[in-house]
């Protein structure tokens, strides 16, 4: 019995066992590879997506428990039409290896939706579940501030 799943505004019928985590449905079934596998146990944040606007670790969410439309990094913006956050990321040259950055951006986007002008402490609190082995944290923090300013002015 296929499960109905809405991702980035498109509806899919997914014929997979209900316990398959959303991450693997996105990556291996729907070909949305922007969302990354890092740990499989919600310890690194690389798989962060939005459900009903909130940041969720897709590696720990079984397909059958997805209770709303899913938004992934692919819908945050594209190289030709980047969101304010993505523009700030590029301008600050945040990424090194870049593997964690989809998750970082999705986490930051959820933060800015709730807290449009976060302090350093609020950024630290919201972002510390997202691991970056390259240590890009100082630039992530700067980019979030820059995006917050741009969104306020824009």
């Amino acid at each position, binding site marked *: 019995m296929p499960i109905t799943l809405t991702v980035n505004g498109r509806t899919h019928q997914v014929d*997979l*066992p209900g316990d*398959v*985590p959303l*991450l*693997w*449905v996105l*990556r*291996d079934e729907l*070909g949305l*590879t*922007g*969302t*990354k*596998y*890092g*740990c*499989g*146990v919600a*310890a*690194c944040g*690389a798989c962060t997506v939005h459900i009903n606007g909130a940041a969720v670790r897709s590696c720990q969410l079984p397909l059958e428990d997805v209770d709303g439309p899913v938004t*992934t*990094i*692919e819908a*945050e*913006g*594209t*190289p030709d039409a*980047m969101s304010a956050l*993505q523009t700030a*990321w*590029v301008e600050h*040259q*945040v*990424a*090194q*290896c*870049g*593997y*964690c*950055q*989809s998750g970082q*951006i999705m986490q930051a986007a959820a933060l800015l939706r709730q807290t449009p002008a976060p302090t350093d402490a609020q*950024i*630290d*609190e919201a*972002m*510390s*579940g*997202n*691991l*970056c*082995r*390259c*240590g*890009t*944290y*100082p*630039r992530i923090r700067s980019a979030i501030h820059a995006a917050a300013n741009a969104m306020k002015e824009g």
Partner: protein
Amino acid sequence: MGRLATYTRRTFLVSSVAITGGVAFGAWQVARTPENPLQSDGDSVAMNPWLIIDPTGITVIAPRAEMGQGVRTTLAALVAEELDADLAAVRIEHGLPAQAYYNGALLADRAYALSDTAQSGWSSTLSQAVPKVLSMQVTGGSTTTVDAFEKMRIAGAAARETLLKAAAARLGTGLDRLKTDMGSVVAPDGTRIPYTDLAQDAALIKPPSNPRLKARADWRYLGKSQPREDQPGKATGTAQYGIDVRLPDMLFATVRMSPRLGAGMKSFDAQAAQSMAGVQKIVDLGDGVGVIATNTWLAIQAANAISVEWNDAPYPADTDAIFEKIAQAFDDSPNTVQRDDGDAAQALQNAAQLFEAEYSAPYLAHSTMEPMNATALFTHDALEIWAGNQAPVMAQADAAAALGLKKKQVTVHTTLMGGGFGRRSNVDFVALAARMAQAMPGRAVQTTWSREEDMRHDHYRPGAIARFRAALDGDKITALEGRMAAPSIMSQMMGQMTGMSIAPPDATLTEGSHDQPYDIAHMRVAGHAADLSIPVGFWRSVGNSQNAFFHESFIDELAHSAGADPLSFRLNMIRAQHEPSATVLETVRDMSGWTGRTPAGVGRGVAFTYSFGTPCAQVVEVREQDGGIRISDMWIAADLGIALDPANARAQLTSGAVYGLSAALYGEITFADGMVEQENFYDYDALRMENTPRFHVKILENKSQISGVGEPGTPPAAPALANALFDLTGQRARKLPLSDTFNLAG
């Protein structure tokens, strides 16, 4: 004498690598220009191994892989600078495995010299010969820019000259009346002929071997921070890593190899797994099992459902016994003595007071964000591989050997890497993926390791022990003896390359100690190789990663014993040896406002390491906060000779420091029952945003030689932190990780 002896040993090491690599090479092999692996095809002209011009534009071939260094952009900038092309319009591709892409800097002597002059001609030729003849196409050792700095500028300049000549012939104009600008030749009347229109003609003209290169003052791109071409892709999730490769009809797989490393398996029972959802095939790999399924998670679930009886570990079963074995290596004669100046033994015997200390450092995992994976398509007489890797020639050879194919039957595409840190220079994961694909001919199979499999099957940074003795005269070290014991990375690597048991002199056992620019009259540093088969490998900064902690902690202890300021104590001994290193220390002193005194509740530590040709000094500040200790600030100064992209260099230094601090705080791989105990980020964690200090970075360019920056930020981080914690608490940690000793909750 000391220096000559060191030189002879290095030469021997280089020669022994060549001989044991099965190579007897004559002058012609060394002198011969490797053939261009690129072939011109219709409108697409391969100007040289690094440059293709076709009607749609200019493509630079990057011989090194992108794992976060921003090196694709910098390599393209080297060519674009001299070609006089628009960097923003240049396309960049990774080179296929080829001799032309050998890394000539891999074995270069980058020791500091009392006088800062270039390497002598023939020694530099010798160090180039081995990587060239062995086709060592490797991204590592902080060598990418060092190797490419001349080569890729020459590639651009030589192509530009042929393009100019082609334009001169077409226009019937003298060469001296033409110039170039942003990808075009410009005629006296202002007419622009794009390179894309001239490439066919230019390809028929013999390029000069020694074209004139621009003076630094004329650089448009180099020496200035450039927009990294990989940023938009990485900010939008469209950048493609190995794990993102998607091919028609692709299947997804995983493997379970023996958690007792190298032990193989007695038997397995896959009955339960066979009927699980999505499972296509269970693969008996002999030394492990694999599952091919319709998605990665289903493959991992099935693999975990297989019950396997593994063989016993071919090494002691737990951490204590492993470290006993490492300590036993002190009883054997040293594998290498890389520094033996004066008579340390005699000087120590005569010393009025002897200072002694023993330190240890644990095994460490690389834990790249992207777990090991590779995708392979086997079609009986050919194998095509897509993998993020640091050694494509080795990947090709190992995959070919695993399947009984010839190397030329194997194609390797190198993708972006979600972190390398040295892990992906061991290409075991590529050969395994090839074996999995062999079980499903005609279908592409992507084999991804679970995080747990990745954590427990690394080529680890070796566990190590150091024993020091020293004598002081006032605030100067008069004699120092260092002995380090650890399993030898070189020995394991040679064993893998040759199938023989060989223990070449391994400088990584003591690098970070024997090669530091301290003026100590009587100094001897010996490396002892422990006989342990736990896989070890190149972990960001290699031997420097543990030896800098040992060496710079001991120097700090001696400074305090002498009642001296730890920074001036170092400076006094370094100044006489290497002026650029002294300047680096002075710079970090001035940046941090170092006074040698700190208020209550604040501690500061300093450390210095000369590694990969780059002197780097760091000051760490720690503060008592909320009942714990917080790392508040870190100041970094480093001398790169030439910083090709300053923003990237700062990012690399910071990144190296975060990697070093993470390991210093939390990093520890332990063993029980022959198996690694850590599984995932919850028991092998790293710095997070909330406990990462503020960074203050300054890059100097006082040295005459360019040097790398990917690793030199790592070694001083652990000792700078340990020294700061001593300053704060009065407690000296001689063992890593530091969170075992201190409450670093902040």
